[in-house]
């Protein structure tokens, strides 16, 4: 095991790290402004709440980013989350041990991801189409399985998990770290990470260089499916029910987080820390708008404007480079 692996190499171009810093600065700035402007923002309770709100989108955004780096898109993640709340609820209520239920649910996510890979690689479908198809059908399958009803989960320990904290930090946020660190190492320090970039930049050149392009695509969608299934488990735990219509529109929030975090929808540009920061910036804006009593309708508009502004400035900076 070589030990020099991590410190010796700064594989990302410097400006990417810089961009991460400016995003972090933006996030901190938002926090400072909100702490001054509102009484309740800086309270322990609210911060925990904010971290919980942002965590699930953050994990989705990481999986989404792998896919976007290859030049693809995964529109199914919201539906996968909803579907996986149903599978975990049903499994737990059927008496399957929680650990087993989680494992099976994660396998469902992997299977969905493999199916996407199959559709793209073997059937030649555009990623947009195959994942759009999954989005709508998974919701349908979930509704069939539940007859349109919510399933209450009768396992307190399972629900307790997402409500409690460890050393003062909500468990849900620990899950972001649990996903984020391996994801970072995978993307920036493993050859599979390099292959995600190379396939997104030029699939043909990668293939001629001996990169297994098909496997790389399978891998990206499988990881996205896995992240989504994991979020499904967390959501089931948080709300205590299985309901296939949950997490409506989360795929768009995940994509937005990723893009705010500097991922290029044309592929080959992206990181792990960027989308994480992007997700928490979005969560902060929603949280702050609530505290400031901004109309919920306005929140959506503000989010849209913010996406345009951030990505526009990112584009300017890149071209200026």
């Amino acid at each position, binding site marked *: 095991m070589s030990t020099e692996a991590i410190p010796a*190499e700064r594989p990302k171009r410097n400006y990417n790290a810089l961009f991460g810093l400016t995003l972090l600065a933006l996030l901190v700035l938002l926090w400072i402004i909100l702490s001054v402007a509102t009484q309740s923002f800086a309270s322990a309770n609210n911060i925990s709440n904010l971290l919980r709100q942002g965590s699930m989108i953050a994990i989705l955004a990481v999986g989404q980013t792998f896919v976007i780096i290859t030049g693809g898109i995964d529109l199914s993640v919201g539906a996968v989350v909803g579907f996986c709340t149903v599978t975990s609820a049903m499994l737990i209520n059927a008496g399957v041990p929680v650990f087993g239920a989680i494992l099976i649910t994660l396998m469902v996510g992997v299977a969905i991801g493999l199916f996407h890979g199959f559709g793209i690689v073997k059937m030649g479908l555009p990623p947009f189409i195959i994942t759009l198809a999954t989005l709508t059908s998974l919701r349908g399958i979930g509704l069939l399985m539940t007859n349109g009803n919510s399933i209450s989960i009768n396992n307190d320990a399972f629900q307790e998990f997402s409500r409690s904290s460890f050393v003062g930090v909500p468990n849900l946020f620990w899950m972001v770290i649990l996903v984020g660190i391996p994801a970072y*190492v995978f993307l920036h320090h493993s050859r599979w990470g*390099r292959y995600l970039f190379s396939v997104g930049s030029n699939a043909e*050149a990668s293939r001629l*260089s*001996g990169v297994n392009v098909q496997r790389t695509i399978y891998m990206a969608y499988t990881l996205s499916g896995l992240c989504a299934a994991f979020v499904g488990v967390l959501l089931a735990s948080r709300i205590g029910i299985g309901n296939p219509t949950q997490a409506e529109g989360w795929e768009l929030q995940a994509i937005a987080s990723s893009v705010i975090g500097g991922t290029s929808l044309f592929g080959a540009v992206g990181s792990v820390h960027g989308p994480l920061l992007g997700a928490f910036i979005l969560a902060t804006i929603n949280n702050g708008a609530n505290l400031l009593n901004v109309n919920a309708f306005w929140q959506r508009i503000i989010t849209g404007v913010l996406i345009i502004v951030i990505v526009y400035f990112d584009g300017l900076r890149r071209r200026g480079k």
Partner: protein
Amino acid sequence: MTSTAQELHPAPTLAPGRTILELKGLEKRYPGTHALKPVDLAFKSGEIHAIVGENGAGKSTLIKLLTGVMPRTSGEVIWEGRPEALATPHEAMALGINAVHQEVVLCRHLTVAANMFLGEENSRFGLLQQRAMVRDAQRIIDGLGFDLPAHVMLGDLTIGQQQLIAAARATVRGTKFLIFDEPTAYLTRKEADQLFTLIRRLKGEGVTIIYISHRMEEVFELADRVSVLRDGTLVGTRDIAETNEPELVKLMINRSIEQIYHKEHFTPGATLVETKNLSGKGFENVSMTVRAGEIVGLYGLIGAGRSEFVTTLYGRHRKSAGQILWQGKEVEVNSEHDAIRLGMALAPESRRDQGLCLNLPVGLNLNLPIYKRISNNLLISGSREKAEAERQIADLRIKTPTRHALASSLSGGNQQKIVIGKWLAHGAKLFIFDEPTVGVDVGTKAEIYRLFSTLLSKGAGIILISSYLPEVYELADTLHVFRRGKLVATHGFHTASHEDILSQALAEKQEKTGGQK
């Protein structure tokens, strides 16, 4: 109004020899570079004016200024006696300045006719007169002597044919000043001849032609005058009758021509690869061997089956019959992966489409085939990644600020070095080069050829595909000629004349195409 066939050639009534465009102190600076130092030059109507120079000498900058793609930093452009701003492409086109680029910049998913009239569609009451446009386009194409259909999708034509369409397109727009940027890079000899006919005809009509090419024999075949750029400076303009190739090359690179085709002969070693009656899509019954230390050249027209042969050898396509022997043992090569594992490396024809990840760093591109080797099970060794990339950058003298620079920021020649360099690290034994010097300047060519010698000296074998006869002729130890999917002749080093090889490649009784000596 709309373009019709009658308006095809608006018959420029320009007196030949009159100055049409004059540059006075034309200059372009980018942040950090002085791309074009003040240039004074006058173009006459009805002349073919060649511009030669290495990559980065300022040719592209000059074209961009003339076509209004970029604003100039200072200087004057005087068009027919009046100073012009030339600030936008539209302005340039309105004056009658057009360009035909090396890479076709047209819409592949539209028909030939639609492309011909793109931006100047024939429409009535807002509706496109599609049939009329196809008819007019066909008339124009026929009139130019190109044997091409106007109703098919542009993308269905070969690159060479698309290039002809791009040239034809420029002629329908009342062009008085037409710039060709390396137009023959992807053309077969026959297509090139058609293009030359078109160019001479335009000249006869008083159109000024700027012709940019790396191919000296084309310059001497076509041009009336030639200007040489070096490092952004105009180092000389000559009448073609008063100069010769050695002089031009000397002006371009300050180096003599003998040093370009650097050929060292090595004693061939063991056989690396042998094909026995190999057949596949686009070629049949090809038997050949490549030994360590030799260059095997494959010459033929585009579409003769050379590329298909090597891509099948490389596992890209399935063979339909025959055998491949690798170091004496029969092998099945079912994928590029198999080929790479055996020790083959392919530097593909189209650098941009197949060779490089342009928006990724140089270092990543160089290491792409060897990430498996420089990782343990999980992680990439950062120090080895750095060392491997930097070693290749130094060995190949790749001009890049750091290994983190994006491949797209490098010049064409340096990009080509990356394509080659990534296989050096991989330790490949057989190198397949498909048109390695297309669009590459003389200086970089020389470096690429020296690289061949380095490879050979390390015991590698090379398959060199080229449509440029002097290149294979001067470099190949064994030269195979392909025609219509078959290997029709084999020669040793310098054992046949250019004419013989050319006629074998063309087969039909070969009318003199000129230029080839």
